[in-house]
């Protein structure tokens, strides 16, 4: 929980210093119950050298850790592994896009992740991209060794990340307090993208994060949007019914404006 350091209070006021008093009043109205107050007489504790100052939890650092480490793992599972890309992600993206974007945009999305994944050694070239300069047997053997090392590295990264996040969470419901914070949302989002898709490659990564499924679902469920009713169709039928009803009422009251005249000679 965030801690607000202010000058001590007197005469029924939380603080005798106007700036500190204003800070307490402001936070009490904007984030009530989400911060604590600490009376302090040493302004040198503050990074700027003055009071009041607010010390928040280290959400920024953890968000960065999740986006960089777990984000690399997610990008590897989605875009790097050929078996996941070719059979699952590429078709999913392609069918979500209109023609003609479905033929070239998925590949571009994949290539955007390439510099980052190459820098951490998690990039796999699909067989069509590999230049076959060496005899087939030698290149296949070297590819297998490289893939084995890469998969071990991925597994080790997954276990290290999981250990850190499990220690951070402990027995608590959420990481920093009894309420969900930005860190919980970002962590749950990354874990859900690993757990939910039916990957065919490196499924051991999914099983590694299986223990965090309960925590991730807790973060997901309140945010699922309710299915909205199709009001448009009802309105269309309503207008049609109104038009037909108006015509019928007119004919009933005014009589039909059409007369059939038969000439008999």
């Amino acid at each position, binding site marked *: 929980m965030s801690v607000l350091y202010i000058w001590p209070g007197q005469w029924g006021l939380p603080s005798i210093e106007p700036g500190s008093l204003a800070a307490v009043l402001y936070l009490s109205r904007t984030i009530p119950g989400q911060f604590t107050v600490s009376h302090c007489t040493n302004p040198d504790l503050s990074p700027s050298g003055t009071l009041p100052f607010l010390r928040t939890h280290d959400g920024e*650092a953890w968000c960065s850790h999740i986006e960089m480490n777990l984000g690399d793992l997610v990008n590897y599972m989605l875009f790097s592994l050929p078996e996941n890309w070719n059979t699952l992600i590429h078709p999913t993206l392609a069918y979500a896009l209109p023609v003609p*974007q479905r033929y070239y945009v998925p590949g*571009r999305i994949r290539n955007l992740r390439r510099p980052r994944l190459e820098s951490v050694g998690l990039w796999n070239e699909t067989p069509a991209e590999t230049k076959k300069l060496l005899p087939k047997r030698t290149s296949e053997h070297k590819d297998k060794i490289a893939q084995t090392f890469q998969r071990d590295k991925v597994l080790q990264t997954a276990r290290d990340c999981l250990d850190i996040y499990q220690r951070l969470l402990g027995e608590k419901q959420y990481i920093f307090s009894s309420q969900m914070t930005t860190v919980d949302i970002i962590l749950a989002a990354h874990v859900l993208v690993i757990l939910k898709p039916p990957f065919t490659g490196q499924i051991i990564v999914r099983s590694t994060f299986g223990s965090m499924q309960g925590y991730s679902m807790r973060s997901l469920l309140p945010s699922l949007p309710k299915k909205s009713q199709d009001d448009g169709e009802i309105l269309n039928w309503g207008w049609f019914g109104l038009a037909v009803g108006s015509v019928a009422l007119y004919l009933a009251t005014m009589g039909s404006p059409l007369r059939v005249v038969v000439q008999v000679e």
Partner: protein
Amino acid sequence: MPALMEVPPAIAHLFSLFPLHTFPAIKPQSGAPPRVPTLWIQPPSSTLRLSTDVECLKWQAYLALRGVTKIALRYDVAPEGAKGARLPNLHLADGELHPAQLIPTWVDEVLGESERPLEGYKDQAALDESRAWVSLLEGDVHAALIMAQPSPSYLWSLLSFPITPSRPLESILSPPPPPLSGLSTVFPIFGTRLSPKHVESKYCDAISTIADRLGTDKWFLGSSDPTPLDALVFAYLHSILHNANHIVRTEVTRRVNLVAWELRVRGIVSGAFTRPEEAVL
């Protein structure tokens, strides 16, 4: 066999018009190993013996904060000539050349210490937290530092060889920045669309968080002794304060505790290295 390999006289006469001259082998410039362990780094600024490159400065700070003294510096080696094509490297008196990742092992051997439990942090939670701070520094802060570097003039880019940076911005930012031409265009994509305001705002948040976390502690995360995280934080703070533009620098100078901490650690780090003329070239 020699009879079959004999060159016909006419062709031998033709070849004699173009004699083959073999030049003597060019010996490597490093020559004999140095008398003292020498750290190869990017050239430092003129007044201090601290490298202008963050990675090299990080390892300089690591050696100094671990208490290793009498390390010489060498800054006439290009990155392409270093092991792994990346500086820094550590050149030892027995001729061995270590890349950066082997420096901690060498330091443990020199100091006669076994691998420190929890890497010197006070507990497991601090060790885990240090990973988060490393990600923040190497992500948001490094991105702002790269964007703050002045871009070379058009004339210089025409005259000089294209140099691929060891860590381009596209490999640091996660998620990756979109292309400048847009993703859905039918034409080939080019460029990178970066939002300087977004990078600056994340950088400001990062510096604010770092300053809050440091407070008035002697070492980061409340450790009793310097840790690898302190070396990394010092490398970034020093680079920001001395090598970056005023926008990036101002954000740190507003934080009194960061400026004071960097000044104190700078004194420790710069005093740990011998003068350049003691290194053997």
